[in-house]
């Protein structure tokens, strides 16, 4: 018997040709599975009670990436110091595990903002968490088993931060959404002139934008009838309306959707308006 290598080469070529498919480019922002909640973490606790609350939470906190419990936690009026350790097994067959450790510090006078996070798709416990952002732009993420634990931790950090003169802020609380400028491809697809509008990246859960039905990927083109050119202009217009004492602000939106007819679906862009009440959470 003889063999014929050409057949096998042809087989591989045919196989590769059959499997090749052209990926459809997706120009729209991804939909995040993590959920950010707009919480003010207001509390009337005195600093001593806030420190005691943090100490009581020691066994309920894990560092975000490592996912292991904290091995040390100390807190005073100036800051919080946390340390955690874990074992790493080297690649060698006879090597003993090596202990590694990491730590973070929350300097209360440097706290810039606090965000409550939920990680519904995290395949482990500790699906709630707190992101502490500092004045220099860095951040620390801590995970907790329950929303209640994360809220207590956030409230305690907020109390101690305010006691040290910091003023933790909420990101655009009057809208409750993260925005971005539109890319050229997004503008073209939506039929908008370049440099027009702002696209919603994600919504803060339970925030004003979510309450009126806004969605990620919605495009805000005007505030109270005035066209907006960038995310900053959206926030500035809303803040100006609030300062002027208006009870609400009307956003003109374009929503990308589909017209579904049987198995056929056609991308459409639907204009709509929504009214956002100008109340800060907790007002």
């Amino acid at each position, binding site marked *: 018997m003889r063999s014929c290598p050409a057949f096998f080469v042809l087989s591989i070529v045919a196989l590769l040709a059959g499997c090749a498919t052209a990926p459809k480019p997706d120009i729209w922002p991804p939909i995040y599975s993590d959920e950010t909640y707009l919480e003010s973490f207001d509390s009337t606790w005195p600093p001593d009670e806030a420190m005691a609350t943090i100490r009581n939470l020691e066994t309920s906190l894990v560092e975000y990436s490592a996912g292991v419990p904290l091995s040390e936690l100390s807190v005073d009026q100036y800051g919080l110091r946390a340390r955690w350790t874990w074992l790493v097994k080297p690649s060698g067959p006879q090597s003993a595990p090596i202990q590694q450790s990491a730590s973070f510090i929350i300097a209360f006078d440097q706290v810039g903002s606090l965000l409550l996070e939920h990680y519904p798709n995290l395949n482990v416990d500790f699906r709630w968490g707190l992101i502490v952002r500092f004045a220099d732009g860095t951040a620390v993420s801590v995970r907790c088993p329950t929303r209640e634990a994360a809220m207590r931790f956030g409230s305690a950090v907020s109390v101690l931060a305010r006691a040290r003169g910091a003023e933790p802020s909420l990101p655009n609380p009057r809208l409750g959404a993260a925005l971005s400028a539109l890319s050229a491809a997004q503008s073209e697809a939506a039929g908008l002139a370049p440099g027009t509008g702002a696209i919603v990246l994600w919504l803060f859960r339970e925030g004003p934008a979510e309450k009126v*039905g806004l969605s990620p*990927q919605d495009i805000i083109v005007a505030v109270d009838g005035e066209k907006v050119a960038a995310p900053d202009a959206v926030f500035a217009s809303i803040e100006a309306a609030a300062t002027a004492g208006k009870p609400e602000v009307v956003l003109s939106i374009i929503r*990308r959707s589909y017209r579904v007819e049987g198995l056929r679906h056609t991308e459409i862009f639907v*204009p709509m308006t929504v009214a956002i009440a100008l109340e800060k959470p907790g007002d």
Partner: protein
Amino acid sequence: MHMKRKLALFIALTAALALRAAAQSAAPANVTPAWVYERQFAKEEEARRLNVAYLGYCLPSFSSDLSGYVGGPGGGLNFSAGFESAQRGGSLGGVDFELFLDLGEGYSRIVFNDTVLFGYSFDLGFCRLNLGGRAGLGFIDWGAYPSVGDATAIGALLGPELSLYVDLGQKVWLWGRGHYYKAFYLSLSDSGSDPVSLGETELDSFIAAFGVAFRQ
């Protein structure tokens, strides 16, 4: 009075138009965002997509010139394997390998077909009906076969095809297929005594096959 009636009519008409416009204006709750649809489309697409690797057993039936020189259903081991893919209802593509192996006492007869599948796939819910054809290359090898000796022939083949896939869930399908092809061969041997060199170049085949397929 006449003016009042006109005014009332105008107000009523204006109110009706305003109400109609308000009823037609889109509200967020009435317009499903594209990404919600896209997740739904992706799930439906995944559920209805045929993208399988398959393996099965063939029952070949040969006719015309070369049928006496190759094995049949009882001639040995007859296998089919390949990959086939189609979207929920649409064009079908794939590649198929067939091997008909007949190992007798002191001789061997091998038919190997390497074909590209094409056609259209109909999504019938619990099953998929694929209609189309196949084209490719065939290969016959005789090893010490009486009246032939050692010889090899290469051919081109083309024919219609029909297959049915039944979804068993859990990424497993049962399939059955029937296809007919006509093949013409050229000898690759120098002896000049094999049937293809002597002018018997055609092989018609009807092949029924069945097996299992696994979703990729």
